[in-house]
């Protein structure tokens, strides 16, 4: 799960003391119709972003899983969710990380 380039900078500054970055206080997930990249989230016609919280990371496995299930994401048009993005705000904001979903999910308009 890559970190967004701006988050990489914040994390480097936090660890190395080169700056005083602001830590995200909340996290939201959105779904993407293409595999997200550093230059594009490819957010799909699914809304809203929903709150997601994570357990403490595992070590040395270097993995982390969500604590809460999320639903009530409405497809406003037909689309296939192949990726996800983690944000620090319900709208706009800063993307934190992204990845691809394990099982591709098709959605029709107004399904959840």
């Amino acid at each position, binding site marked *: 799960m890559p*970190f967004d*380039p*701006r*988050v*990489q*900078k914040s*994390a*480097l*500054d*936090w*660890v*190395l*003391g*080169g*700056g005083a970055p602001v*830590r*995200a*206080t*909340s*996290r939201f997930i959105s779904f993407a119709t293409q595999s997200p990249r*550093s230059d594009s989230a490819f957010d799909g016609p699914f809304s809203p972003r929903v709150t997601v*919280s*994570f*357990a*403490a*990371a*595992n*070590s*040395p496995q*270097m993995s*982390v899983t969500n604590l809460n299930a999320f639903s009530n994401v409405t497809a406003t048009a037909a689309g296939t969710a192949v990726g996800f993005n*983690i944000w620090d705000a319900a709208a706009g904001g800063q993307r*934190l*990380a992204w990845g691809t979903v394990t099982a591709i999910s098709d959605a029709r308009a107004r399904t959840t």
Partner: protein
Amino acid sequence: MANVSAYLSKALLDWVLGGATPVQPTSRLAALSLGTPTSVSGSEVGSASGYARQTALFGAAASPAGSASNTAGMTFGPFSSSNAIQGLFLADTVSIFSGNMLWYGTLLTARTVLPGDTLTVAAGNLLITLA
């Protein structure tokens, strides 16, 4: 130097995703390795050789490159015995063999220091990345 230690990998995940509240390092020390350091082991040079960890200072990270480099040179030694130096790692504590490793890597060219030698890492030559 692109290798993130196991300790720091967890701390970064927790810091970004909020699963826990990791402790921000208050100091950063460069350390030398006799072998090739790994994510969990530094194989550090012993103190009896005249070696000590050196404070590493960094500027603000570059973005989107996701990198930072040291802003001041660091000089190890003079050494009192011969040592074959292969790697370097960053730690959060000044004491040898203690604290948490942050990043690790190998020198571009391994160096064997002899009694009386010093080993210097010039400003800008220690490049830390997350990308």
